[in-house]
């Protein structure tokens, strides 16, 4: 009875947010366009965005080369599209892993308590204390030769799961004491039923927001790593584009189109995910009232 209705309710809630929140609408639309740019358009790319010297180099934007070309002879526009897709893929993989691992650990720790809780929190706190960026630098350096897009996503998730774990745990701890959980127990519901049907509805909203925020975090982190050359330089991501542009002194040499394209895109993606996240949390706050 409930699982199908559960899903339908979530979808109708999302449609509701879309209709009522301008921020959410704007962010969502931009993300949608980015997805088209990143996943659909590359299928029609006339050039291989990874191949060097496939087009005349260092051409400014024109009707032929919409965003100009790079020193390595690549079409900035097509390189950008492919980068968007790759960056988004890494980000989504990170978010999928980190937010769900965090959710699971937070739920288990919160609802079970005792030794399991203490062990899981010890683990979580260990990861929180280790400086995330430095850990990433080390891991990526070590694995430099084996990195692929999915693996990059997984690596970044190493440092993004602890925070949601802590948050979810504290939310579960307070939800656990609510009267309706006692009512559920008295109605004969077992712990897993209580988790799914009593607690999860209160956590889902937060979880979605966290998912969006993790995507943000991942794109930013990958960008930061790439600028140091700590990313998969053989492929295109927004960060890698930046890396090449910086390394070839694009700005100093007047090739402004090469560096501003990824920067502008990054900023736009950031803003739109942020707006989506804000739109979601505002809606949740209104619902709670």
């Amino acid at each position, binding site marked *: 009875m*409930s699982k199908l209705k559960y899903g339908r309710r979530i979808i109708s809630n999302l449609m509701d947010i879309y209709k009522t929140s301008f921020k959410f609408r704007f962010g969502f639309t931009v993300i949608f366009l980015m997805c088209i740019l990143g996943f659909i358009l590359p299928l029609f790319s006339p050039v291989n965005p990874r191949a060097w010297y496939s087009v005349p180099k260092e051409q400014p934007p024109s009707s032929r080369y919409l965003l100009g070309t790079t020193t390595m002879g690549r079409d900035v526009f097509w390189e950008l599209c492919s980068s968007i897709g790759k960056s988004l893929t890494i980000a989504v993989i990170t978010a999928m892993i980190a937010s769900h691992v965090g959710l699971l650990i937070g739920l288990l720790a919160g609802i079970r308590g005792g030794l399991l809780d203490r062990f899981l929190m010890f683990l979580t706190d260990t990861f929180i204390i280790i400086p995330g960026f430095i850990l990433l630098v080390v891991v990526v350096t070590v694995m430099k030769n084996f990195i692929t897009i999915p693996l990059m996503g997984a690596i970044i998730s190493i440092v993004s799961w602890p925070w949601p774990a802590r948050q979810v745990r504290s939310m579960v701890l307070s939800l656990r004491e*609510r*009267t*309706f959980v*006692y*009512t*559920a*127990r*008295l*109605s*004969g*519901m077992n712990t897993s039923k209580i988790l799914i*049907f*009593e607690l999860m*509805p*209160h956590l889902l909203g937060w979880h979605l927001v966290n998912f969006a925020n993790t995507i943000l975090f991942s794109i930013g982190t990958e960008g930061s790593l790439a600028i140091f050359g700590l990313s998969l330089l053989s492929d295109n991501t927004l960060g890698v584009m930046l890396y090449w542009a910086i390394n070839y002194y694009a700005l100093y040499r007047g090739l402004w189109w090469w560096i501003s394209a990824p920067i502008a895109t990054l900023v736009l993606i950031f803003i739109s995910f942020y707006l989506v996240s804000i739109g979601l949390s505002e809606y949740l706050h209104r619902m709670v009232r």
Partner: protein
Amino acid sequence: MSEENLLQVEDVSKIYGYGFLGRVKFPAVDHVTLSMENKPKIFTIAGESGCGKTTLARMMLGMVKPTAGTILYRGKNVHNLKSRDRTWFLREVQAIFQDPFDTFNPLKRVDTYLYETASNLLKLKNDEEIRGKIEEALRFTGLSLEEIAGKYPNEFSGGQIQRISIARALLPKPRLIVADEPVSMVDASIRINILNMFKALLTKTETSFIYITHDLATAYYISDEIAIMYRGMIVEIGPAEKVLLKRHHPYTQALVKSLPEPGKKEEWKTRINAPGMEIKEFLSPGCKYADICPHKTERCVKEKPPLFEAGDVKVACWLYE
């Protein structure tokens, strides 16, 4: 173990730690002993907020583990139930809570709890049978399944939700219902209806109640027996008539004198000491009421009085040694 008592609370305490590393120990419930006979009865536990009555109720329901002491329901230890006894226990003992708008999940439809209770505790699979039982329980509380189907808690008034909550508790036809301040958040004009429902359940279905409240007037209206709690301790216990009308313990006297009752203005105005900053009162080694008691002696501050017999009631006060 003999089944002579429905409920046997044996020297139960619940100690919480607070402060740095939880080293300061704070007894929310302090060596409480009481028992309920295996006869339909309404037993009230009365006291102000913070006296430990809610913690005691949760321990009776098996939801909070006592730090010391045992609670036996029909001879079985409530906190040591084998898994097949757990369902049995939920069929025998149910509960109603104080806040109607937190009793049910605000994000779920109210009738889901009725269906859950019916299928989990009554082991019914047939949809029609389940609906029949739910309809029966709802009708007893003055509602119908049609009225409440598919609605969320915020679509009802407090009084209506309490009635649905009672209907849910009645589904497994329990022998004992623990009602934690069931009417304190309900409008005054509806309160009496719900209390009358308890009285009706007592006679018609022989259901016993543990009624937890801070309102002595409603306690008098429905109780057979009453225990007065102060800061985790029972200070007076006995038949409701005797305890509330004779008032042995100084705290009982203070409580009844402070009840604002139209027509009793002069009695209400007599001077009484009010409780001060609360935590230190929980930690004193002697009688916890000593600080503000008009009959305080040296002994009261140092030694905790046990329950003495005074006629039909038991009083924890050195005055009645």
